[in-house]
C-alpha cells in the first residue's frame, strides 16, 4: 500500500486514481475535524469539498516537510475558519435545500457534551479534537494549527478546564 505522501506526490502529477484513494483515506477524518469546528453536517461537507479541491490543485506544492495528514488537516482548518468568518459576515449562500440532516447525527451524540463543546472557543475545540480524537502528537497538532507547541499546550489546558467547568 502506498504511503499518504507517495499518494500526494501522484496527485501532484494529476493522477485521478491516487486522488480518489487519498480522498477515501482522509474524507472521514477531514469531515469530523470540520464538524468539530463548524458544528453542522452540511457546512462540514462543504469544508471537506473545498479542502479536497485545494489538495487536488495544490498537491504539487507539497514538499514533504510535514506529514500528509498534517498538511491536509491544516488546509481543512483554514477552510473551516474562512467559512466561519464568512458566516459571521453573512456572506454565505443559503444551505442546499436538498440536504436533510441525518437524524442519527443528532440522536447519537451526547447532547450535553455537544452543548458544552459549543460553548468553547474554536481554538479550544480544535485543540481538543486534534489531541484527544485524532491523537496527534504535540508537534503535529502545532503544525496543523500553525502555532508554537507551547500555545497548543496552553490551549489544551484551558480547553479542558473550560470543558470540566461546563460539565462537572
Amino acid at each position, binding site marked *: 500500500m502506498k504511503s499518504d505522501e*507517495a499518494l500526494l506526490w501522484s496527485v501532484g*502529477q494529476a493522477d485521478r486514481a491516487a486522488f480518489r484513494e487519498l480522498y477515501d483515506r482522509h474524507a472521514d477524518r477531514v469531515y469530523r475535524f470540520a464538524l468539530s469546528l463548524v458544528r453542522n453536517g452540511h457546512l462540514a461537507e462543504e469544508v*471537506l469539498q473545498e479542502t479536497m479541491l485545494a489538495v487536488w490543485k495544490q498537491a504539487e506544492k507539497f514538499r514533504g516537510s510535514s506529514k500528509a495528514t498534517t498538511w491536509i488537516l491544516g488546509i481543512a482548518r483554514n477552510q473551516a475558519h474562512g467559512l466561519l468568518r464568512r458566516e459571521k459576515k453573512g456572506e454565505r449562500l443559503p444551505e442546499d435545500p436538498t440536504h436533510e440532516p441525518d437524524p*442519527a447525527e443528532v440522536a447519537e451524540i451526547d447532547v450535553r457534551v455537544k452543548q458544552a463543546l459549543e460553548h468553547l472557543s474554536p481554538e479550544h475545540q480544535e485543540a481538543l479534537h486534534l*489531541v484527544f*480524537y485524532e491523537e496527534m502528537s504535540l508537534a503535529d497538532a502545532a503544525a496543523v494549527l500553525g502555532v508554537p507547541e507551547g500555545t497548543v499546550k496552553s490551549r*489544551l489546558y484551558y480547553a479542558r478546564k473550560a470543558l470540566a467547568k461546563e*460539565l462537572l
Partner: protein
Amino acid sequence: MTECERILEMLPWYVTGKLGRADFALVSAHVQTCEACRRELAEVVWVRHTMGAETRDLPVVRDEVWKKVSSRAGFRDLARVDIGSMLVGFRLGVNARRPRSPVRASLRVMGRNVRIVGAERRKECEAPKDKT
C-alpha cells in the same frame, strides 16, 4: 517551571500514548507520588473519554460529496467515447475544465489505460520514497 507544571503539560499525550519512553516513565513515577497531578490526570482521562462520546457514531461522509468534488475537479468529461472491451479499447474524453488539455485520449491494454493525448504530468521530479 516546576516539575508539576512540566508534568501537567505532558498529561494529554501521556493518556493518548504519544509520549516518548523517558517522558512516559517520568510522568508515571510523578503521578504515583503527587496527589494534585493525579487529580489532573483523572481530569485529562475524563476529557478524553468525553471527546470519545462526542465523536462516537458520527455519520460517514455521503457519497454525494465525492461526486461534487470529482465534478468540480474536472473529472467528468463533457463528452466521452469509449470503444472496445474491458481489456482492450480506446477512450476519448473532452472536458472544458481542463484548460491545458481539454482533450484526452487513452488506449486500454490488458485493462490498463495508457494516455496517448493530453497532459498527464504537471512537473518532472522524483517521487518520494514510499514508507511502507
